[in-house]
Every structure is written in structure tokens, then in C-alpha cells.
């Protein structure tokens, strides 16, 4: 087991993480196809958009780039924290919303919801349907968890995930509506379509759900010991696990509407942070949220600047960079 880090060290890590997140978000505001200088951003912050709010620069900043950078942070925070929780619940570092099929399940719901919602409307229906699909998938997985070991459950999740992705693809092709994002969105994600409306609806769901997951922290700590051990210590795992994964499904649902299906963040960030933060979920969940937010803000900035004025799908960046990085970490670290 990793030794428990001292409170001072933790405070430094968390403080540093929050500062780094702030710096990356500021940097992300300045970068993009439309040229906005650091001075513009600082003037805008100082003036709070009062006297300068009507120029093209400030309109792009406030109506496109700010919601997008905030969405990247919220999206990354959701992916990171959900990764930690799933790894605790499934008791394997291989667990992640993407690998286990949660994202694809939520994607089916999101695609159905998009098909019936006008583009300019608040995406309430997509979020509700995606969250319902994600939560339903989680509850079904929890019901099977008692019978199957975590290894078989991971494999089953992969299988269901692929099937769900295929159904999403068929649906997108058949509906062929400008309201429904392209199939790429459900495979490699994108934050390109972010508006304030999407961000608001997703955040209203994400914030309380991630907080709820955080509240389950002590239970998740005990679950690492095994279901029976956790139960003997007073935690009703039969009730807790379905509740936890249902909330995970809701978080994944809201995040899929925001940025589509993006892999690796939920695997990589917890793996990176466990040795630093230690095994306690009450610390790991916020740490992974901050780490995930930083990672996605950076990845999304690359996605929209590398090939400007066109964009590269977000998931291509996270997989292209995250994949080899995770592989290197896995091989470098001695088996535990």
C-alpha cells in the first residue's frame, strides 16, 4: 500500500493543482482560431465585460470560448472522478466509463435525445435520456456484479459498449439529422458544439452528482477490502453499489451530452494520482476531478488549435497522447 501522504504535502498538491487548472484555463481562453491576446483576456476580467462587451473579440470570448473552456474543465472533472469511483467499485485499475460501456450506453440516450431537441433549445431531454441510459446500464451491471467477477464484468462491459456504439451509429445514420451530432462525436468526442445552454444543463446535473459520489468515499474505501469485509464493517454494499454506479451513469450521461465519448482520461488521471494522493476516495475524487479538468482543458485547446480553423476530435488527442503515456507508466511502475 502507498503510505498516507502528510496533510502539508496534500495541501501543496491540491493548491498547486487548482493554480495549474486556473493557469491552463486562462491560457486556453487566449488560444484559438480567432486571435485573442492575453491583454484582451485580462482587460475583460478586470472590466467584467462592462464597457468592452460589444466588440467581436469579447463576443467570441464570452459566447464561444469561455463556455467551451468551462465545459472542458467540467467534462474532465466528470471523467476523472468517475474513473476513480469505477475503479473502486470494480476493484480494478482497468475500470473506466469508456471501457466499461457506460459512455456508449449514455451515448444511445444522448443520440435519441438530440434527435428530438431543436438545436437552439436547452438540451434537457438529451441529458435526461443519457443519464437514464447510463444509470440503467450501471444498475444492470451492479446486478450482475454479484455473480460475475470483476474481470468478467469488465469484458462484458466492453462487449456491451461495442454493441451500444454500433446501435448509436445505426441510429445516427438512419436519422441523418443536423440536430444529431455525427458518429465521430460518439466515438472520439468533441467540445466544439458547446453553448452556454449545454454547459448550464450539464453542470446542474454534474455538480450534485459528483458531490454525491464524494459522499460515498468512505464506503468505497472499505469496498477495496472486499464486499464481505465492507459489509462486516457496517456498509450495506448491496444497496450502496447500485446507488454508486447509478450516479456514475448520471454523471457519464451529462458529460456525454457535453463532450461526447472520450477515453483515457478516466484511466490515466487516477492512475497518475493514486501514488501521490493515496487510496482515500474523499481525497482521490476531488484530486482526479482537478487532474481530469486540467488534462481535458489542455487536450481541447490542442484539438481546436493544432489544425485551425478545423478541429481535431478531442478523443483522438487524449488517445494519441494518453495511450502511450499510460502504457509507459504501467511498464515503469513495479507490479504491486
Amino acid at each position, binding site marked *: 500500500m502507498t503510505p498516507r501522504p502528510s496533510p502539508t504535502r496534500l495541501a501543496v498538491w491540491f493548491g498547486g493543482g487548482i493554480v495549474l487548472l486556473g493557469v491552463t484555463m486562462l491560457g486556453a481562453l487566449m488560444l484559438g482560431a*480567432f486571435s485573442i491576446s492575453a491583454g484582451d483576456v485580462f482587460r475583460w476580467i478586470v472590466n467584467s465585460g462592462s464597457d468592452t462587451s460589444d466588440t467581436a473579440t469579447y463576443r*467570441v470570448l464570452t459566447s464561444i470560448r469561455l463556455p467551451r473552456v468551462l465545459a472542458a474543465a467540467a467534462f474532465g472533472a466528470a471523467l476523472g472522478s468517475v474513473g476513480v469511483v469505477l475503479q473502486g467499485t470494480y476493484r480494478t485499475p482497468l475500470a473506466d466509463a469508456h471501457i466499461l460501456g457506460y459512455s456508449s450506453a449514455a451515448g444511445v440516450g444522448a443520440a435519441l435525445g438530440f434527435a428530438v431537441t431543436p438545436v437552439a433549445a436547452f438540451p434537457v431531454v438529451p441529458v435526461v435520456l443519457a443519464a437514464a441510459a447510463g444509470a440503467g446500464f450501471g444498475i444492470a451491471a451492479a446486478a450482475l456484479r454479484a455473480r460475475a467477477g470483476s474481470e468478467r464484468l469488465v469484458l462484458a462491459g466492453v462487449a456491451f459498449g461495442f454493441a451500444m456504439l454500433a446501435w448509436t451509429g445505426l441510429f445516427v445514420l438512419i436519422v441523418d439529422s443536423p440536430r444529431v*451530432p455525427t458518429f465521430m462525436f460518439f466515438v472520439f468526442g468533441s467540445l466544439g458544439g458547446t453553448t452556454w445552454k449545454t454547459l448550464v444543463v450539464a453542470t446542474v446535473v454534474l455538480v450534485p452528482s459528483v458531490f454525491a459520489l464524494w459522499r460515498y468515499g468512505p464506503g468505497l474505501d472499505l469496498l477495496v477490502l472486499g464486499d464481505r469485509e465492507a459489509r462486516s464493517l457496517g456498509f450495506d454494499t448491496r444497496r450502496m453499489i447500485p446507488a454508486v454506479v447509478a450516479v456514475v451513469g448520471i454523471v457519464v450521461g451529462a458529460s456525454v451530452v457535453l463532450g461526447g465519448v472520450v477515453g483515457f482520461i478516466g484511466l490515466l488521471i487516477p492512475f497518475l494520482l493514486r501514488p501521490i494522493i493515496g487510496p482515500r476516495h474523499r481525497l482521490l475524487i476531488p484530486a482526479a476531478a482537478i487532474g481530469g479538468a486540467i488534462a481535458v482543458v489542455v487536450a481541447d485547446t490542442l484539438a*481546436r488549435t493544432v489544425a485551425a*480553423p478545423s478541429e481535431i476530435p478531442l478523443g483522438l488527442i487524449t488517445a494519441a497522447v494518453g495511450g502511450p503515456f499510460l502504457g509507459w507508466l504501467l511498464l515503469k511502475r513495479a507490479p504491486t
Partner: protein
Amino acid sequence: MIYRFRFGGMGIAAALLALVVSGCSESPAESPNVEDDTFVGADGVAIDAHDASRIVTLSGDLTEFVFELGLGSSVVATDVTTVAPEEAVMLPKVGIGRFLTAEGVLKHNPTLVIGNTQTAPATAIEQIRAAGVPVAIVDVPTTFDGLYEKVTLLGILLDTPTTAGALNDRLQKEIASASVGSGDSSTTRRIAYVYTRGPDVMLLFGEGMTTTPVIEAAGGLDAGVEAGVEGNVPVTPEALAAAAPDVLIVPEEGYAVLGGIEGLLAIPGVNATPAGRTRAVFAYPEGDFLTFGPRIAASIERLVADLRSLPAAP
């Protein structure tokens, strides 16, 4: 549709594909209002009292029409499907109208963005509008009447109704003189338009595509329409056999990628068609034949001339 699997920003290939989709757009919720003085787009969004000093066009035909309507000097950027006029080709490109990014358009500080019902994604249009820039959306016509309506509507949008009226008169005259009359059977062949970008993408065009009126104006029969194709279908040996075209029209760009006539004949089913056996294949630039732009009469003339140069039908 196949193109939905391709993602944006990966260059010209996707741009060329963007031209394919004439028949695939959803029918607009409201038909554009061409009577009134206010521009009402195909998406129902009205645009009033705007400033047309900096225009971004999101489709090649729209670029050409804006130039024809005398506002060429106001165009500050176009999408990559713009192939004419020469001044427009030199302008900065915002990427591809089918795979738009809001910032890619807004960086040119436009006061007016003109797209069509194929401009996507819808969220990018939404974002540009949220940034305070009006986006005019026009229909993608698949008949000559629709073409004239589009010109009238652009005239209202750009506040040049008289020029638009004169342009329509000219187009009408040019199209009438280029077209082959019903008494003339010298060009009556079964003609199929096959869109290709290379061996991976081969689509047979049918009902509701921009190619049908051009083929019919030249006196031909659209073999895709006759075979019951709606929109476009991936080319299969069966689909080609059913269409049994005497003549194939292909985009010049994709034809070159295939490796000319030999490459085309190597596609299963092609050499079983009358067109394949007699090697009656015409390759035209996409920007000339696929878009319903102001140079449409020239495309008809060229097709008529090529059809007349064929050996007499057996």
C-alpha cells in the same frame, strides 16, 4: 450516408465530398419567403437591416452568386468548395462548410455569414449567431425554379433586388438557349452521374440531386432516377446494372484519383454497363457540374456538345 463517418478538418477530400450531398438535406421547416422585403432563411431565421460589409460564404455557388450580385469586394473569406471567380479562390478559407467551426469563421470578423441547408454542424451556426453575427441560410435547390428563387432571396439579403432580377433573366435565357428542345433526339441517352473520390467512395445519384436538371436540360435521361434511386446510393454492380447507363458522368477530380478510364472500368459492374463497354465517360470538374451556380448554362452546353460527339446510338 457515408460522409457522416468522415470527420472535419482533414482536408480537401472531405471538402470534395461536401459537394455530394445535394439531395440529402432535410426539407426546410418553412419555405423561404421570397415575396417580402425581409430575408427569411430556409431555417426560418429572418435577417433584417444587416451590415454586408464583411461577408463569409460557406459554399462555392454562394460565393459565385455574391460576386455576381456585385458584392464580391465585401467577401472576406469562403469555404474550400469555392472554385470561382479567381478573386474568390485567393481569399482565406474557413475550412469546409459541412464541417464548420465557429471560431474559424469569426476570426475573419464577418458582419454577415451566408450558408445553406447543408452547412453543418448546426451548433456552429448557433455559436456564430450567439456571437452576434447573422447567419443567412438558403435552400439547396434541385430545380431551375429553385435556383431562380435562391437568386431572388440572395438579392433581398444583399439589398440588390434589381441586380438579382437581371441575373435571373440572364440565367433563364442562358439555360433556355443551352438546353436541348424536346423535338431534338440527338442527345437522348441514359446518363448516370456517379460521384467518386476514388475506389472507396462511389455514389450513384438519383432523384433530388442537382445533377438531374442539368442532365435533362441536355436532353438526356437520368439513369439513376429511372432506376428509382432516391438521393444517392453506394455504387454496387446491381445498382449499376439496374441503371444501365449509356453514358457515365464522373467528377474530374475523383476520376484522376481512380486512374482514368482503366481505373473506372476496374470497378465491379462498370464495364458491364453500355457506358463501360463503349467507354462513354465524361469527367467534369465538381465545382462546375455539381453546384447550382451562375455558370450552370455552360455545364449544360458542354454536356450537349459531348453527347453530340458520341457515335450514333446503336
